[in-house]
């Protein structure tokens, strides 16, 4: 009991120290950027570094979050009007909802941003065709299609011009190339499986919602697309139902699969990295093929916007201008592999030399189809994602899965 007073004072000291350091710090000019992680995070990191060097008086804080978490963070802050964020990075699919809810500031009214942006990305950054701009394209992301040119050449297969050709090629490879699984996609429930399915749906002439904004999955085109999609399953590795980006990328880089029907440009950088890839120079990225209709590669552009309740909107706009300038966009492409949002850069000699698929990507961006411009896409995607997977694992018949998904989507759209 003698030691008790000493122990008590140590405890008191520790308590005071921890409580003191738990108090919030004082403020200076602050710019808060909420952005993605992974390759996009790296791109933003370098831009922040460069901007900070040019503007030492500003304290820049950057949030790095995965897609779902970023959406939640922006939505939560916007709804609660916390005034915590200045620059927000958004997926093109969130734009309709954010714009409709008034969560983004009118960029044109703040001063506007000029640039020769890729047409498809530019279209989704405005609420209506020639309305004011609420976001600025930052990364010109579009889903592409990857295949092993060496294996195709070895068995006399041409570059696939239709989805039917893709399956035929995969079947050939299954026979002739036993050490390699022909095809892979992201089968995990939710956004992964939907992203893999949408280009196929588009190519077969289907759509999730029609031009009037009604659920449109209960028809023959959608059924044909889903039947085709499910017919690919025997050509995929076991466990495809739980595959996400990590699994697909690793399988491609390690040479375990020959075709990946959904491959993002941000993943392609490591394909030619000899320290981790076994297929250097042997993978080609092309726009996804068409079928009854032309190709419908999925647009996944990332954009930068100014939060409507931002306390530092002028600085936010200045940063966005900086980040979407040709110099910074080119630097981003060279240093982090993120595709630029400015159309002329896709013909830039340095970039094409570094990224041999850029011409194909420019083509894909021209043909790119954005996801339906509805505010309830998150919910619709979750519903579709669940039913696609139930069909994939065989717990539901394709027709039944589409009918049920359609019913639930119609209900979601009606609210």
């Amino acid at each position, binding site marked *: *009991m003698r030691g*008790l007073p000493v122990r008590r004072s140590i*405890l008191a000291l*520790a*308590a005071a*120290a*921890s*409580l003191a*350091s*738990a*108090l*919030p710090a004082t403020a200076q000019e602050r710019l*808060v950027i909420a952005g993605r*992680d*992974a*390759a996009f995070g790296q791109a933003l990191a370098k831009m922040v570094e460069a901007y900070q060097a040019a503007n030492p008086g500003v304290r820049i*804080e*950057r*949030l*790095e*979050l*995965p*897609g779902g*978490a970023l959406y939640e*963070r922006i939505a*939560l802050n916007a709804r*609660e009007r*916390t005034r*915590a964020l200045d620059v927000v990075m958004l997926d093109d699919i969130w734009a309709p909802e954010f714009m409709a809810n008034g969560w983004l500031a009118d960029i044109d009214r703040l001063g506007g941003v000029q640039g020769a942006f890729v047409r498809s990305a530019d279209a989704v950054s405005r609420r209506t065709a020639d309305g004011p701009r609420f976001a600025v394209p930052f990364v010109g992301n579009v889903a592409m299609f990857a295949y092993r040119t060496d294996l195709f050449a070895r068995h006399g297969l041409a570059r696939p011009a239709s989805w039917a050709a893709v399956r035929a090629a995969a079947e050939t490879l299954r026979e002739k190339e036993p050490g390699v699984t022909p095809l892979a996609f992201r089968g995990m429930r939710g956004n992964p499986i939907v992203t893999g399915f949408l280009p196929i749906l588009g190519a077969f002439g289907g759509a999730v919602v029609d031009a009037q904004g009604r659920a449109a999955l209960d028809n023959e085109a959608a059924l044909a697309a889903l039947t085709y999609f499910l017919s690919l399953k025997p050509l995929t590795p076991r466990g495809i139902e739980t595959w*996400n*980006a*990590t699994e697909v*990328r*690793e399988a491609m*880089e*390690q040479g375990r699969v020959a075709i990946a029907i959904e491959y*993002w440009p*941000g*993943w392609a950088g490591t394909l030619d990295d000899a*320290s*981790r890839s076994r297929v250097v120079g042997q993978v080609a990225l092309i726009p996804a093929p068409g079928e009854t209709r032309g190709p419908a590669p999925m647009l996944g552009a990332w954009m930068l916007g100014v939060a409507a309740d931002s306390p530092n909107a002028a600085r936010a706009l200045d940063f966005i201008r900086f980040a979407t300038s040709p110099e910074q966009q080119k630097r981003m492409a060279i240093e982090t592999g993120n595709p630029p949002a400015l159309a002329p850069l896709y013909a830039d000699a340095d970039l094409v030399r570094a990224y041999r698929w850029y011409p194909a990507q420019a083509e894909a961006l021209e043909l790119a189809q954005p996801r339906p411009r509805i505010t309830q896409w998150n919910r619709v995607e979750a519903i579709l994602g669940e039913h696609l997977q139930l069909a994939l694992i065989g717990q539901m018949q394709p027709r039944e899965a589409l009918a049920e998904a359609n019913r639930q989507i119609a209900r979601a759209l009606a609210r």
Partner: protein
Amino acid sequence: MRARLAGAFAVAALSVLPIVWMAATALKPPGEYVSGSTALWPRAPTLMHLEALAAARVWRLGLNSLVVTLGTTLVALAASLPAAYALARLSFPRRLDMAFLVFILVVKLTPPIVLAVPLYQVLRGLGLLDTLGGLILAYQIYALPFAIWMLLGFVRDVPVAYEDAARIDGAGTARILLDIVFPVMAPGIAATAILVAVAAWNEFLFAFLFMQSPSGFTLPTAIATRINEDETLWGQLSALGLLASLPILCLVGIVHRALTRGFAGGLA
């Protein structure tokens, strides 16, 4: 005897194997850990993941974890010690003690995900969002029920005779608590403190939801951010996981003693 030793060794090896794998992966270059071999030890050990973490100034996050852990433990003990004493020794009107214990258990049973969104609004209302202090407050949801539950048993172990003697001598409740009950309970208090601290150090969900700025993240959040949509940075994840686990693994002896005491004392 030999069979017993062999059996014990086998089980201990199984327990430790994943941890060893994690340590080895932290030192493997990317080419090796995706190659799918059973080789535990890296063929070409590299410090690149640890260097990447150091460049990301991960020690600052460790400091956040430390602050939150200490704060949570101290606040939890300060609130739960008197409460446990009251529940064990004093008579409550209208069976309120039973009601309070049920309430505590219901809180303990509520899935954290369910409380997360309304708690977010409570913290925001108090201006404690994105502060370590707010996190310490939110962690009381985990810590208080657990601490009260454990300390209840330990209080009961203190012979009532000691308190009666002191009360006859004229000591008030505060005196009795500070000079007699708590010192006798000291091993039990230490055991409870250690377990609360471990739980706070490891907690992920609230830290991820309530801390907005990366500079405020704790170690588990940093680990989770190594798994992103495009790829999983296994090397960095393993290295970070190892660094976050190392302090606790070093203390496993103490934790073991704390747990043992907790169960012997709390149940006898």
